[in-house]
């Protein structure tokens, strides 16, 4: 099962004729995604690997009923591309761009919310439901990471996701939907906004959060559990437990400031809400087994 989209959801790819866009669009289709159209301004009327290309996202919506958009455009053009998709009425947008200006990301999140839409990213690999469909840039050749199953994964990181998810698979589980919310300080969509979708998904038995220092997304997820809005087992692995205060560890969002964002606070919040927190990647599988029993 999947959250967000499945293999029937009509997807438009913005930036489909670019090097990255065309490469990953082929993989998205190989993985089951129903790509119905592409958009590259100035290249309307053409084709890319058999996909019709338009100048504007609105045409993809009118002619092909596109409901979701995958955006492969550079960070500085991302805001315009997202606004174009939102204005065309698209309600699910995934953007992988790494380096979207902070103020523009705030504008993107604001506009998406007032349109009742969801923007996933930026600075993410995207979203994959192994065996169903994929929006983003996940490879299918690493079987010990992207294996079909019943554990949901939400992550702020790319490389660490491979590390942790391989532990989920090694423990005998697979992934229902893996959603990368991204490593920026303002993600378009937050953990707590995805959790209700996992809660409602009959194909998800538990959720793994791959978080890190900085921000309050993990605390918000804990709050949701405390309120009873998320009742499935939740296992978290958080990077930056030993990071010095005030140091930005790689990702733009990975910094504890203003008395907020330390991993210690996050662990306390999650554990007191009933989540299990792994102190190292290899513990994630152990804790999942503890939470779910070995019989899955």
């Amino acid at each position, binding site marked *: 099962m999947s959250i967000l989209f499945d293999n029937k959801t009509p997807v438009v790819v913005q930036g489909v004729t670019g090097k990255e866009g065309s490469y990953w669009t082929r993989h998205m289709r190989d993985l089951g995604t129903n790509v119905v159209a592409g958009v590259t301004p100035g290249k309307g009327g053409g084709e890319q690997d058999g996909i019709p290309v338009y100048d504007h996202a609105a045409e993809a919506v009118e002619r092909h009923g596109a409901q979701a958009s995958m955006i492969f455009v550079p*960070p*500085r053009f991302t805001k315009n591309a997202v606004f174009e998709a939102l204005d065309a009425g698209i309600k699910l947008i995934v953007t992988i761009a*790494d*380096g*979207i*200006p*902070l*103020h523009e*990301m*705030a*504008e993107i*999140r*604001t506009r998406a*919310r007032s349109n009742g839409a969801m923007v996933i990213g930026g600075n993410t*690999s995207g979203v994959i439901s192994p065996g169903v469909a994929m929006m983003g*840039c*996940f*490879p299918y*050749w*690493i079987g010990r990471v992207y294996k079909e199953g019943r554990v949901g994964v939400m*992550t*702020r*990181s*790319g*490389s*660490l*996701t*491979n*590390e942790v998810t*391989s532990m989920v698979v090694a423990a005998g589980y697979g992934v229902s939907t893996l959603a990368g919310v991204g*490593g*920026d*300080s*303002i*993600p378009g969509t*937050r953990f707590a906004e995805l959790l209700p979708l996992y809660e409602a998904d009959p194909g998800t038995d538990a959720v793994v959060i791959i978080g*890190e*220092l900085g*921000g*309050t997304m993990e605390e918000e997820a804990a709050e949701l559990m405390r309120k009873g809005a998320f009742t499935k087992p939740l296992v978290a*692995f958080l*990077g*930056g*437990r*030993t*990071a010095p205060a*005030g*140091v930005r*560890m*790689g*990702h*733009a969002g*990975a910094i504890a*400031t*203003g*008395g*907020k964002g330390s991993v210690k606070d996050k662990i306390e919040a999650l554990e007191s809400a009933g989540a299990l927190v792994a102190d*190292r*990647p*290899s513990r994630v599988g152990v804790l999942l087994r503890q939470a779910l029993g070995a019989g899955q």
Partner: protein
Amino acid sequence: MKLFEYQAKEVFAEQGITVPRGVVADSPEAARQAARDVGVPCMVKAQLLRGGRGKLGLVKRAATADEAARLTADIMASSYGVRKVLVEACAHIAQEVYLSISMEPVSAKAMVMLCPSGGVEIEELARTAPEKILKGYIALEEGVSGRMLDKLLGAAGFSAPVEAQMRTLIERLYQTFRQYDAELAEINPVFVTPEETVVAGDGKLIIDDNSMFRQPRFEKTREHYASDMEFEAAKQGIPYIQFDGDISLMCAGAGLTTAVYDLINYEGGKVANYLEFGGPHYTKAETAMRICLENRSSVILIVTFGTIARADVIAEGVIKACEKLRPDRPLVTCIRGTNEEEAHAALKAAGLECLTDTEEAVRRAVAYAKEAKSR
């Protein structure tokens, strides 16, 4: 990118925010002249990007121009690498107020934080008495609203003339925040003088790194980094953080590198440097290794789990770098991901230690570091 206080104040002044009269000096002699220009008594403030300058003894009051020169010499001789001081007229202070604007990620609005009782320990206060920090929110598409200001300032208890100046100050600080793509625009403290005027006592402006392409006015210089190596790495586009341990990390991906950093600490090791050569930098193994070798580390730990950045390409880069640089210390590799079988075969053929489990690789690196220490 964090600006120095003098740069932030230059920007603030241009935006119509009142700042104390001040002159930047880069030598004791220049500071003496600066003190004469701004008048004594004056403040001598180290221009340093780290916080807590006051506690480190890097902000001093000088009664005479000679004293300003002497203090400048002391400050510049300190171990903090101070290259400039700001010599500033002393303000008379009746009240100190904390004011900042930052981006609040949940609402995606700009958040004004105001604390009428000052902000010396603002982070501590945010934890222990958050109710003392007043907050107001600004929707980017609407800008500062009179209603928000009424509510925020109504709760602050300022006199009418101070309140009026605070309104303008917040409007101008917001304008600065927007114009400069700021992550944070902060004045800590705002001075309220006995004459009821409002002056920016300090200035902090952090420009969002993702927006630097459209903020050409400021450029990162050596002064923005704590060490030569951090500056060198930044010029190469390689994310790098200097620590003082003995294990060099040469990893791929921010999240994974941070997780490895934690694992080293759990295992009783100490990290010499954080370095990412993944993502778009994955072909930069040689540069990355050279930077690691410049550290006084005793082992280099390479951990990657790349998908787009292929394992075989990374391994090839590492092998070539070794051939060229002939590292004088052990290397532990744990390179996985796309085409990892080819990567492992190549690493083994080159005689490199090739592990496939991150935690095992960390333990191995920590053991090497301990061994080196005991020698």
